[in-house]
């Protein structure tokens, strides 16, 4: 692992995308959240230097804009929540997402694994159901969305519907898998998609079948992904192509490359970050 500074390789497309996002954010008449963004000009050579003049933003600063985020006046939005641990009420805010947003990694997985049925069991309050349903519906895969509170019920549904893909948190996946295993059905699920919080250490579950781990900044905002064919022996991930990543002095910042409803611009996602030579990122946890 290198401890050197790093960023997503800069290309003409990346520069174009970031300019588009910055203009979108600055000129959005519906929200003044980014009204003071400086202009970033510059060629490929000077782009990074210019970009890095934009002050970085932390989650704490975003929380200060809670009110603007909650009452974001754009139409066609739905809300996600800003915390995995929903007992952490103090900092919780609602985070607007475009109503048409899909879950790209799940879409790829559904296309690759063509499951007969896909089940998602994460806390209902995370608000991931509509995105999951929309993504699977496009591929004609029926879904079931269940609260993770009752692993025996989830297991029974997997059996009865012959579901072959499960989206869950690490601990719930393990619980469900153990029940399946006790009944000799450990091979039933061909793909486990684990949703993991970026800011918390996750235990990689020992499951039969393929396992992908996706790290989310907030539930529904994927930042990195380990694809099912890779060995799940470390917590490193490939950065999401939806963001421009910068690692400076072990801190990691992301900038949206798509005009998300609320774009993230030089948003600090972690300290203690390292990047290997293949561009896999590892977030250190206390």
């Amino acid at each position: 692992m290198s401890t050197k500074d790093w960023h997503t390789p800069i290309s003409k497309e990346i520069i174009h995308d970031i300019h588009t996002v910055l203009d979108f954010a600055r000129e959005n008449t519906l929200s003044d959240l980014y009204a003071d963004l400086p202009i970033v000009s510059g060629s490929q050579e000077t782009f990074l230097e210019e970009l890095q003049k934009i002050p970085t933003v932390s989650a704490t600063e975003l929380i200060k804009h809670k009110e603007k985020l909650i009452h974001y006046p754009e139409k066609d939005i739905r809300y996600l929540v800003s915390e995995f641990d929903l007992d952490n009420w103090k900092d919780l805010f609602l985070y607007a997402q475009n109503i048409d947003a899909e879950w790209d990694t799940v879409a790829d997985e559904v296309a690759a694994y063509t499951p007969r049925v896909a089940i998602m069991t994460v806390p209902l309050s995370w608000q991931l159901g509509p995105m999951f349903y929309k993504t699977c519906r496009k591929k004609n895969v029926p879904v079931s969305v269940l609260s993770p509170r009752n692993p025996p019920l989830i297991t029974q549904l997997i059996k009865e519907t012959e579901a072959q893909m499960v989206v869950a948190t690490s601990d719930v996946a393990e619980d469900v898998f153990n029940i399946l295993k006790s009944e000799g059905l450990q091979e039933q699920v061909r793909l486990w998609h684990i949703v993991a919080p970026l800011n918390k250490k996750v235990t990689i579950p020992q499951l039969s079948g393929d396992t992908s781990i996706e790290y989310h900044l907030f539930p529904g905002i994927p930042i990195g992904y380990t694809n099912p064919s890779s060995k799940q022996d470390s917590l490193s991930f490939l950065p999401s192509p939806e963001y421009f990543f910068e690692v400076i002095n072990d801190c990691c910042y992301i900038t949206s490359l798509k005009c998300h409803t609320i774009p993230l611009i030089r948003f600090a996602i972690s300290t203690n970050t390292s990047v290997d030579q293949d561009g896999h990122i590892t977030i250190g946890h206390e």
Partner: protein
Amino acid sequence: MNNLNFPYSALATVLKEVTKSSKSNFYREKYFGETSVQSFLEGDETAWEDIPFLSRGEIQKFPMHERLYVDEKDVEIIRPTSGTSGAGILPVPRTMSHEGNKLPLNYRLFVSLNVHRLATFSGAQFYYSPSFRRLAGIDSINVDPGDIPLAAHLITLYMPDMLAGPVYALGALSENLPTNVRKKVKAIQVFGEWCSQFQWNEFQRLFPNAKIVSEYASIESQTSVAVPCSIAINEHKQYVHPVPEYVYTEIINPISEEIIKENGVGGELVITTIRPVAFPLIRYRTGDLAQIIRHECECGITTPVLSIDGRLDIDRLRFRKGELNLSEVDRVISLHSDYLNSGDFEVHYKEIVDEDGVFKPQISIHLSLISPDKSTSTLKEALSKSLRIAPDRVYADGVEENIYMSLEIVPLVHTKASTGKKKKIFRDDK
């Protein structure tokens, strides 16, 4: 059938479809050797009453993928029944392809109330949210009935003008919401279980600006079954009309299976789905109690006004700050078998208005007492102090807090349990 509202052609279409369909053998196997189906299809309306009923157990025996009457690619979601009855879950496939651009019937009322933000406990929120948004401009979030304090916090952040959920969850939620949030609510949709008058009054008191509406549906039905009309809702909150385009309903005596046509006689609700669904239900016994209030209504809807009165077999009572399970009553009673001829019992629940005009739950336990004169008061106190209604509460706590009436012990005369069970819960406040 001496019934002007009998939808012969719609029912014949459904029957024809399921018996001719190349997609599933479910009904062909079920009706094998039944002459009533053929007679009905040949025009004999009276044969309908001879077509066998359908039970949940029969459906459960058939693998889900083998009882689909739509293409597998048209199944959008699968919802399991809860399985709390001990009979295991029933995965229910559902398609929306037939619904097109129509808003669920009940939501047309909410559109008229100009609501824009819905917080719902419904497990199907993810499924309906796009059409709510597209067709009614209603944004929605899903809240978890398993974590009421969190639900209250999310709702306080979100500030919805409409709430939807089962009675118990909405009841618990309302105690956790600040006044300004409650006052903003313009509409409440109640579903999932029978709602007592006490609870209705509480909802109306806590949400003074809300129009409260109940709907009858079930996971198995795959569609709304009965909704209120503008007239019936003013008579009683739980009076509803079966939706004629969606279902045909019958009420039967659960023992004799005879059809009940008179007003005011309770029985089991039986439904037949008329609209295309992933798995059509034909004469499905819902396990819910209902009665006909009247056959005609000035609102113009052609189906009778029904009162939906909860489950036929109640195994759990939910009331303010507590719930009582049949198994808990059984456990506590077994501790006092010295006083009893048998372990049979009936639990009767009602809400009584006390001298201050406040509704309070009252529980009476009917027991087969060896010596009624001697044991009633002893048992009354012992049971009240032993019956657990929450992890850290017994029934006596509620009596002491003056929110419940005292527990009553009554000699068991004769069980009126229609299903022949010896241990049963009755709601006497319907």
